[in-house]
């Protein structure tokens, strides 16, 4: 059990840092959800994803201490002995993949960073270099709805046979390693196709919802490309599981009917009509 007092307090009950693998996760769109008319429904969806389906990621008896604040989830895997770094990172990657699958089942997507270093979590206080590294990875390195690994975390896994044989990681075009959560579905005896169809629907819903907001739309376009890459690789004959190209291309419309006012954010932007 993650007895955080034993792990993160010294003999005089003073907080102390421990070496951990740390996941910093940002749930996308929660700001809008919290202020919208369906805030109660969104709260239930988050609760179901985080504690009501696969496991309770916030459980007090979990070996992976966690904290959730609004749209931010922090999950840690304490490194409890020499040469245990790979196990900690591997375990956290596995948990991250399972968590992403639970979030997607509720229509939620996340962006995150996974780092290794000094960390403290006890009684609601979280602190440490690994937390800062994981946050910076999430906010600057991830860019898309993906969980990226710090170089130190990747190094921990290089010699681990479990990571070589059946990796839950993929390398993206920018060289970043990220958690390949959809591949986790193929480890299970249950047919992965219903969940892949649900994933496709969740992504298409987001693409349609954000069709007029380029920055947000691009995030889900990346998820669509990831979805199509995994389904093409794992189920090459099931083309219907992929997201159709019509959802992935830019749509150009005639001027001026398709142009919206107020999109120019420069100082010399459009004049406001009195």
């Amino acid at each position, binding site marked *: 059990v993650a007895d955080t007092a034993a792990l993160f307090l010294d003999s005089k009950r003073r907080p102390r840092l421990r070496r951990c693998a740390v996941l910093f996760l940002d749930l996308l769109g929660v700001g809008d959800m919290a202020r919208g008319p369906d805030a109660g429904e969104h709260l239930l969806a988050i609760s179901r994803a985080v504690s009501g389906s*696969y*496991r309770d990621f916030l459980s007090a008896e979990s*070996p992976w201490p966690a904290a959730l604040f609004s749209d931010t989830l922090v999950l840690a895997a304490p*490194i409890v002995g020499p040469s245990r770094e790979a196990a900690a990172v*591997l375990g956290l990657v*596995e948990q991250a993949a399972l968590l992403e699958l639970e979030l997607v089942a509720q229509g939620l997507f996340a962006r995150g960073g996974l780092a290794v270093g000094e960390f403290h979590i006890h009684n609601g206080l979280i602190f440490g270099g690994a937390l800062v590294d994981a946050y910076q990875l999430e906010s600057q390195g991830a860019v898309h709805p993906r969980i990226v690994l710090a170089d130190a975390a990747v190094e921990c896994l290089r010699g681990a046979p479990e990571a070589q*044989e059946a990796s839950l990681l993929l390398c993206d075009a920018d060289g970043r390693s990220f958690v390949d959560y959809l591949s986790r579905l*193929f480890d299970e005896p249950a047919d992965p196709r219903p969940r892949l169809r649900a994933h496709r629907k969740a992504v298409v819903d987001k693409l349609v919802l954000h069709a007029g907001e380029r920055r947000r739309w691009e995030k889900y376009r990346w998820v669509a490309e990831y979805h199509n890459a995994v389904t093409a690789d794992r189920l090459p004959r099931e083309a219907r599981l992929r997201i159709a190209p019509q959802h992935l291309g830019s749509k150009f419309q005639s001027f001026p009917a398709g142009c919206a006012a107020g999109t120019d954010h420069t100082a010399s932007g459009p004049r406001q009509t009195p």
Partner: protein
Amino acid sequence: MSPAPRRRAPRPKSPDGRAYPAHLRRYEPLDDELLALVGDLEPVTFDRLSSRVGDAGTLAVLPRWLASARWRGLVDESASRGGQPRSYRLAATAAPGARRAPRG
């Protein structure tokens, strides 16, 4: 008279026809320890089970061992109910250390 050839047990298949993933064999040596634990605690949630696993290496691969055991029909999973996470119990055919997927 030569002995009858040993019949090879069928390799586990999923309901949709996929073969048992070869990389999950790596976790079969954990059967004795973890099946006994599931049997002691059943029905048991992932969190309760993981809280009883002391070794960090075993803990890291517990989800993969559960997947392996479910493929081989040793552990059953029940759906989550009433806001509670899903739980696991030994399948009727399972005994600690029992049934390993045949090689090949």
